[in-house]
């Protein structure tokens, strides 16, 4: 089986006490990859990451090496690396684990990435609620600076780099890369129109790369173990180890490090210990709240970007939420719609108005006040939001609503004809 020979790397040292300290990190080979990277040309690092097949773990799955390659070489402007530790997608809680248990792994990846793109400054943008993790990272930065991994002429090279923490203040939209940049500049997290892309015009108008925490945590291992090793794990074009965050109705929720492409059913049944009481799986949101729901009979599929897109959903952050047969899908849709309505930044009319409208219609149906035409209206709103907004929050709100309404149409209709929730709200009550 795929998982039999797999050895975790991202979580390997997390089992040791004090795994967050520099001492423990170095004892297990920490910062050796940085030293190796500094012996190479930045372009060689970019090439390695390209060949590894690493795709962004923040949700969109964009090839990391390709993104780094977009940063212009001949520019007098400073360049920036921004670490996206905003982790606010409902269902996702994997980046927090890295920040908590292995902040130096993140720092080492951040430094190698910064070297590769020619940045002398990196920011770690962490959501404000993760105050504890922010303090751990701050301490890790101090340790790394004292040891000569951060600061001037790192490890005797001609390259210098500073790493600075930036603690957010509660806003999902600041996880969107240009919202994050605006927030870092001390403004509202209002996403920018693209193009220009951040790689060309980003933070303070300068070339900027925004990468997810887990993406960067993969980088030291690619440098140390080789791109061939990384690309040999998981399906083609979807390579590498992955931190799956499993939550909802499972016996053993948590973060599991497994290869890309593991079967969703295996993840739930074997690693998550199955559904409590042996109840059937009714639905799974495979990759965080913005990914369309799968029915319980659709979960025999590999967890990777391409397979989930083919199945009409999305891999997202690879963090499935499992719902058993006591769960009302209209209420689940409503909770999701309420989230996006709450988090819409308000810049674009289709998203600002549409998200609230979807939320109200879903509540109407859930409480037995719905009519059949409300279902049509709901679907037409999703069509009108999708593709018509500055950033992907609009899409992220439209897709799950459409998914619930299409995959569980019968249940929606039952609410309408019976004029009540047949489950009385069910497990979500």
């Amino acid at each position, binding site marked *: 089986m795929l998982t039999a020979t797999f050895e975790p790397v991202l979580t390997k040292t997390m089992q040791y006490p004090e795994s967050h300290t520099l001492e423990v990190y170095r004892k297990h080979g920490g910062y050796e990859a940085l030293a190796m990277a500094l012996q190479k040309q930045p372009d060689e690092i970019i090439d390695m990451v390209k060949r590894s097949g690493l795709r962004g773990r923040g949700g969109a799955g964009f090839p990391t090496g390709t993104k780094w390659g977009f940063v212009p070489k001949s520019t007098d402007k400073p360049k920036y690396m921004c670490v996206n530790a905003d982790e*606010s997608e*409902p269902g996702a*809680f994997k980046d927090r684990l890295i920040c908590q248990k292995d902040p130096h792994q993140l720092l080492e990846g951040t430094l190698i990435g910064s070297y590769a793109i020619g940045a002398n400054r990196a920011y770690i943008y962490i959501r404000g609620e993760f105050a504890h993790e922010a303090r751990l990272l701050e301490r890790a930065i101090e340790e790394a600076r004292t040891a000569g991994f951060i600061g001037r002429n790192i490890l005797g090279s001609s390259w210098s780099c500073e790493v600075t923490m930036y603690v957010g203040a509660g806003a999902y939209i600041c996880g969107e890369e240009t919202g994050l940049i605006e927030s870092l500049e001390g403004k509202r997290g209002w996403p920018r129109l693209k193009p220009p892309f951040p790689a060309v015009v980003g933070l303070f108008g300068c070339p900027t790369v925004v990468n997810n925490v887990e993406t960067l945590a993969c980088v030291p291992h690619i440098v140390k173990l080789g791109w061939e090793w990384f690309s040999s794990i998981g399906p083609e074009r979807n390579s590498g180890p992955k931190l799956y965050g499993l*939550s909802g109705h499972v016996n053993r*929720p948590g973060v599991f490090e497994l290869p890309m492409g593991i079967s969703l059913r295996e993840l739930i049944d074997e690693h998550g210990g199955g559904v409590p009481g042996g109840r059937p799986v009714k639905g799974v949101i495979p990759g965080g709240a913005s990914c369309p729901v799968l029915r319980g009979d659709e979960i025999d599929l590999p967890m990777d970007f391409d397979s989930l897109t083919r199945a009409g959903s999305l891999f997202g952050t690879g963090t499935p939420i499992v719902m058993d047969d006591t769960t009302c899908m209209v209420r689940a849709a409503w909770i999701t719609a309420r989230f996006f309505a709450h988090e819409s930044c308000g810049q674009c009319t289709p998203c600002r108005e549409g998200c609230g409208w979807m939320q109200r219609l879903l509540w109407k149906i859930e409480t037995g006040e719905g009519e059949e035409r409300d279902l049509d209206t709901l679907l037409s709103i999703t069509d009108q939001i999708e593709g018509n907004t500055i950033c992907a929050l609009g899409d992220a709100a439209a897709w799950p609503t459409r998914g619930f309404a299409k995959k569980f149409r019968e249940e929606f209709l039952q609410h309408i004809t019976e004029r009540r929730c047949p489950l009385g709200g069910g497990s979500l009550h």
Partner: protein
Amino acid sequence: MLSPEARQRIESLKTVYETNQSALIPALHVAQADQGWLSEETQREVASILGLTAQAVRQVVTFYTMFQQKPVGRHLIQVCRNLSCSLLGGQKLQKQIQDKLGLEDGETTQDGRFTYLSVECLGSCGTAPVLMVNDRYYENVTPQQVDRLLEELK
């Protein structure tokens, strides 16, 4: 009025961040920790230290949910209302706390001890249901724990 220490810290943030405006969110965190919330007066003080307009500060304060625009209790209780927590009893937890404290969403007890908020995903879905008291997480929370917690927080 901001304490001299808070002023000093905000002053020093100017050298950490590359522009005064980019020091704004960190500065507001300092000001809120100092004052408990961000009154208009506090916002003006921050604006003046950083050389920003009051409007630039206000725009930011009103955008981010963690910036409090009215006084909050000593213990700010935030309970997650999103999916993974709701699947595992998050709604019941909310009701239990609200009933016990007699608070609607966003309200503060008269003695200034508690403020209650229901909030979106706190990024801790694997240990649902979760709540926060000030900046501390409580995970895998049971009804018994909530009762005890509310007693203990003075």
